[in-house]
Every structure is written in structure tokens, then in C-alpha cells.
């Protein structure tokens, strides 16, 4: 699998994502946000961080970066796109995923491992988990409170596009949503950090399954 990890000004989990992918055997390329063309890729990762300081709105300025037009085209064409934390916020800002993120209900940054339920196994990201499986991944964000309209929320449920749900809602998200899939199921945005649970030394390997699954499903 060829994976590209995009670095925006202020990305800070780009290396972590690349390390986790490489450990699973992916060939990882680092991509600068100013690029307008991309090499052939099976997976595009928008990593966590504070792009543009998260000023204005989280992910808002990065969503308008030159590289994003091409990311959107690839997503349309079916390439897998994974947005983690700030990457999820960017995908929502650019409209590749529904909804938006506002400040955590507790108004504080929260960094801790949380318990999640894998809400669907029907995607190239989650096929390696069992539907309903309980997993534990760290979160680390200030604005992870997922907001979407009731109608949108119903649609996500109907189309089985909620990927992960918090067991114990740490940020006030609508319907405890921690991760959602795009309509084509090839785009996933999630607030928890799978790359921080991919090395047994760091506590837990529940996130590693996601990367291994991508390798298996995308070759």
C-alpha cells in the first residue's frame, strides 16, 4: 500500500501517523500542503495537529490549502482518505464529511484513552474489527464536539456511516459520534488517534488493527 501523509503548517501528528503506517508495512510518502499534484496513492492521511493554529475554526484554513482540491478529487475517485483529529475537522470543513466540530462540552482540552464501540465493520478501515467491538484509543482535542443536524444524523445511521461511537461521551458529540464515513465509505474522519495505539510499548494496539486492515483491504 502506498500511503501519503499530508503535512500542513501546524500539523503535528504527521510523523506519528507515518510511523504507525510504516510499522504495518505501508510505503509512506510525506506530502507538503502546497502541492497541487499527488503521486499514485492508495491512502491519503490528514494527520492530527493544529493546522494554522486552529485559528478561526479548527481545520478551516487548511481545508482551503492548495493540496485539498486534489485530495477531494481523489476521494471522489474512490481513494481511501483518513482524517484523524484535526484531519477529521479538515474533512468536515471541506465538505467531504457531514457535520462540524465545536468546542468540547467541558470547554477544556482532553487527552486520555477512551472506550469506543466500533459501530460498523463495513468499510476498508473497520473491516478488521467486529461490529460492536469495544476498543480503546486515545483522544487529544479541544474541539471534538461533533455537531450535525437531526436529519443528517438519521441519514448517517440509516446508511450505516457511523464508524465509531464513544461509550462515555467525553466531548458532548451528537449521538456519541467519534468517527464517520463519507457516502462512498472510502473517507473516514475520526477524533480518536489510532496511531497512538499502534505500539504495545505505548499502551494498547487497538489502533494498529485499523492500519493493518487498510493494508489488507487496499493491498
Amino acid at each position, binding site marked *: 500500500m502506498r500511503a501519503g501523509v499530508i503535512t500542513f503548517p501546524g500539523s503535528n501528528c504527521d510523523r506519528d501517523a507515518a510511523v504507525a503506517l510504516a510499522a504495518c508495512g505501508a510505503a509512506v510518502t510525506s506530502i507538503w500542503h502546497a502541492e497541487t499534484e499527488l503521486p499514485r496513492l492508495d491512502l491519503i492521511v490528514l494527520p492530527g495537529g493544529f493546522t494554522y493554529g486552529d485559528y*478561526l*475554526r479548527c481545520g*478551516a*484554513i487548511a481545508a*482551503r490549502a492548495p493540496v485539498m482540491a486534489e485530495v477531494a478529487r481523489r476521494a471522489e475517485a474512490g481513494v481511501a482518505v483518513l482524517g484523524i483529529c484535526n484531519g477529521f475537522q479538515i474533512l*468536515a*470543513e471541506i465538505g467531504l464529511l*457531514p*457535520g*462540524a466540530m*465545536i*468546542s*468540547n*462540552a*467541558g*470547554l477544556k482540552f482532553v487527552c486520555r484513552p477512551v472506550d469506543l464501540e466500533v459501530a460498523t465493520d463495513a468499510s476498508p478501515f473497520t473491516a478488521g474489527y467486529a461490529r460492536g467491538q469495544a476498543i480503546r484509543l486515545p483522544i487529544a482535542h479541544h474541539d471534538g*464536539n461533533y*455537531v*450535525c443536524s437531526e436529519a443528517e444524523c438519521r441519514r448517517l445511521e440509516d446508511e450505516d456511516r457511523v464508524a465509531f461511537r464513544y461509550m462515555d461521551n467525553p466531548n*458532548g458529540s451528537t449521538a456519541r459520534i467519534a468517527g464517520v464515513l463519507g457516502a462512498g465509505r472510502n473517507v473516514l474522519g475520526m477524533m480518536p488517534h489510532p496511531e497512538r495505539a499502534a505500539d504495545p510499548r505505548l499502551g494498547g494496539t487497538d489502533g494498529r488493527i485499523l492500519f493493518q486492515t487498510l493494508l489488507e483491504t487496499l493491498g
Partner: protein
Amino acid sequence: MKARVHVRLKDGVLDPQGAAIGRALAQLGFAGVGEVRQGKLIELELAETDRARAARQLEAMCERLLANPVIETYAVSLED
């Protein structure tokens, strides 16, 4: 020309910041405070001198960057 853009969360979108301010005010003993909402007020210096063109420019800025239509509305104003 000086311009202002007021971006606020749509009615119906929960506003944790506003709610926290409301609670804190009550705790400080301010009575009779109803709903509190916190929005952004962005002030810009524009080179444009034509009001109509400036207004159109601002509108475009909001559509393209300053507001997120999923959760926010905006209002623009120009100083005289």
C-alpha cells in the same frame, strides 16, 4: 474602509461557550440572565472604497472562509 463580520452559531446549535458564560454569571450573582451566545466579531481593513463592491467582497469572504454554513450564520457591516 473598515468592515465587520459577525459570525454566530445557528439557532439550535448548542453553544457550550455561551452556556458556560451564563452559568458563571449566575454563580457570580447576576440574576435574570437568560440565554447567552458567544460569536465572533472579525474586524477588517479593506482597501476597497466603493461600498457596494466592498459588501460583495465581504460576502464572498464569508462564503469562502469566515463562516461555516453547516453551523454558523453571518452578518456583515461597513463603517461609514
